[in-house]
């Protein structure tokens, strides 16, 4: 008789179960629905319907552009903040970090409602700049998700590296470009992945700042509410593949760059 030996690796069983039930199975269901028609026969009609319709492709493009702009602005805003917080001379930097992460403690619909009022004060009528308002709303909402991973990556960065680069004659700009930036790439990547996907799908922000144009998230939602699970699932699957590709791409780019930089140093 086999005796059960408790091993440390058995501790992963709960998580594996969780993964199987709540991640893998739903994924399979999504893929099943995506490639069947309403009668359950395997078909590619949903696929064709999505890619051969200028309107849905328009939405894909719109969400991509929106997400890219939001991610870039988040990155540009978050990097200096994270750098100052991590490397700056502030003795109580943890309390400063708190100031930037504090908004995350407040319910996000509440935050966007407040933002909406501020924007109304500034612009008067929000309906004239729906795209701009959406960008502002999303940046406001997702900024902490960019700051946190960057801050973590930058605190881990060894100060002696920076000192070494200075000793070897690099000026501030060179130090940043050749040492700090490459070493913080993992933080940048996790920040991007945490902002990019929500920016393509989070339609609550859109609704709240009165943007009536669909993004991918709202498109999926609209299919599900009209009981069209097949088209809805297909678009979810497409989105999943897109995000997957995007992540692989950024990782590969970062990987290449990383090794190249290391080689040079």
């Amino acid at each position, binding site marked *: 008789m086999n005796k059960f030996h408790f091993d440390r690796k058995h501790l992963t069983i709960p998580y594996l179960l969780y993964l199987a039930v709540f991640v893998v199975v739903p994924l399979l269901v999504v893929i099943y629905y995506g490639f069947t028609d309403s009668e359950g026969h395997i078909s590619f009609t949903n696929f064709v319907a999505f890619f051969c319709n200028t309107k849905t492709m328009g939405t894909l493009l719109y969400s991509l552009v929106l997400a890219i702009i939001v991610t870039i602005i988040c990155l540009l805003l978050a990097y200096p903040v994270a750098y100052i917080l991590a490397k700056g001379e502030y003795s109580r930097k943890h309390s400063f970090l708190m100031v930037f992460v504090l908004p995350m403690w407040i319910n996000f619909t509440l935050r966007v409602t407040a933002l909406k009022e501020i924007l109304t004060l500034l612009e008067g009528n929000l309906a004239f700049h729906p795209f701009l308002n959406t960008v502002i709303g999303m940046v406001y909402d997702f900024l902490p998700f960019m700051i946190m991973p960057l801050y973590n990556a930058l605190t881990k960065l060894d100060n002696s590296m920076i000192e070494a680069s200075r000793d070897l004659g690099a000026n501030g700009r060179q130090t940043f470009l050749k040492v700090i930036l490459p070493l913080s790439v993992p933080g940048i990547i996790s920040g991007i992945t945490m902002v990019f996907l929500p920016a393509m799908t989070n339609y609550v922000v859109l609704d709240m700042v*009165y943007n*009536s144009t669909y993004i991918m998230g709202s498109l999926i939602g609209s299919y599900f509410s009209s009981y*069209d699970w097949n088209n809805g699932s297909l678009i979810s699957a497409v989105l999943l593949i897109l995000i997957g590709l995007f992540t692989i791409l950024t990782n590969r780019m970062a990987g290449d760059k990383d090794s190249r930089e290391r080689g040079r140093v």
Partner: protein
Amino acid sequence: MRRRLIAFLLILTLVLGCASMTGCGKEGADSSDVVVLRISNWEEYIDLGEWDEEEDLIDLEDGTEILGVNAMYEDFEEWYYDTYGIEVRIEYSTFGTNEELYNQMTIGDVYDLACPSEYMIMKMMREDMLVPYSENFRDVEDENNYYERGLSPYIRSVYDTLNIDGQTLSEYASGYMWGTYGIVYNPELVDEEDASSWNILLSDKYNKQITIKDSVRECLFSALAMVYYDDITDEEFVSSDDYQERLSDYLNRTDKESVDAVEEMLSRVKDNVYSFETDAGKADMVTGKVLANAQWSGDAVYTMDQADEDGIELCYAAPDEGTNLWFDGWVMLKKGISQDLRKQHAAEAFVNYVSMPENAIRNMYYIGYTSVISGGDSNLIFQYIDWCYGAEEEDEEEAEESEEDTEDVADDAEDAAEASDDAADSDVDDSDSVDAEDAGDAGDDADSVDAEEAEDEEEELVEYKIGYFFDMDDPDADDEYCIITTIDQTKRQLYAQYPPKAVVDRSVVMRCFDNEGNDRVNRMWTNVRCFDLMSLFR
């Protein structure tokens, strides 16, 4: 150490297992003698009690006092036991949209009684999901059959004419709330005439000042009315004998040509309006962010009430071209009831309980929508309408308010000068005008009301007839069910809650589309809402 951990895990499993088993056991024992009724209703769509006795007490003319203390479904449990001697337990849950309810049920949630809208009821009928109401439920002799005895004859006539595959809606559904779809507007900034047409959605004058509901069906309806504006407002068409049928035909079109025209129309509407909104419309009307908002009548009442509290007057208009008549009704679900007669009895009793005139009033007061119950023999409902909107009552209220005001002023020194002037003025004016002019009428209520205001109101008082709702056959019903009210009210809450006959005559129920039509409409909606690539090249 390791052994201890295993022991701990084992104990944990055991404890959990026992707990879940005893849990199941309990439920099993329960269900044998208590009827469990699973009800799914819209959010905030039933009286949940806890009214303030001073502020909310409804005291009607004949001395009836109505106050919601407990949630209505809790009161029902008590009433059912008292009346039938059977214990019932309500499991009450809510949904946000018809589609959500339907999706929940497809996923596997089981309910016995639910309250979807008319088109969803028709869809469920078509898919054979419903249990018809029993003969007993229809028995007018039984005095506990409040629904059958109290249903408005007008609503009954609508229910009887709607049918799916030869079966009328009356067989499978009982009404709960009903209303129209129209436009809430700020009368100071929007002309009544503009608000009385769906074309306001395209008007340059209100560019980016109007919100509409983010709902396919409502948008389709308004757009159809705009597309066929010339046809359906043609005088010959309006005065034709089968006007309503033909109007219904126009506003229920889902053929390709119509849907294409609607798509084009809605794309223009999308560019012209402030936005499509799911829930922000009510608040935005009150804060003044938008000037007009297409809204369901019950929400319109709520919006106007809220604005009144802030001292802003809003009005409601049901457009002239035609308006969408909607109603939500109780249906019993096959999956839930599953031939359990005790359950069906409890479900039908619940419908009767919420249809009791007192309870209908409680619900109306709490949620602001209009009940389908007219009361039958009891005239409580009419008394309630009069209590809410009758002019005399309002004067009394105002008198009370201004009395309170003067008292407040006495305490509060800041505004004293101004207000006491007012009070003094009014007293003087009062006695003058009362003596000089219509002493008889004004004398009753003009003690502390501003004299000028009282005079104005007197000029403005109008008769508002809603006989059709209470009695369709009696030609004199309009005289019996006539409310003396201010001219303001005929454009406001009263108009929204109990529309006049003219509005009802041009209102149309939006039916449940066939699959082909449904697909076409959904595709149209996606196209309207998606980003138009072509706009980049224009």
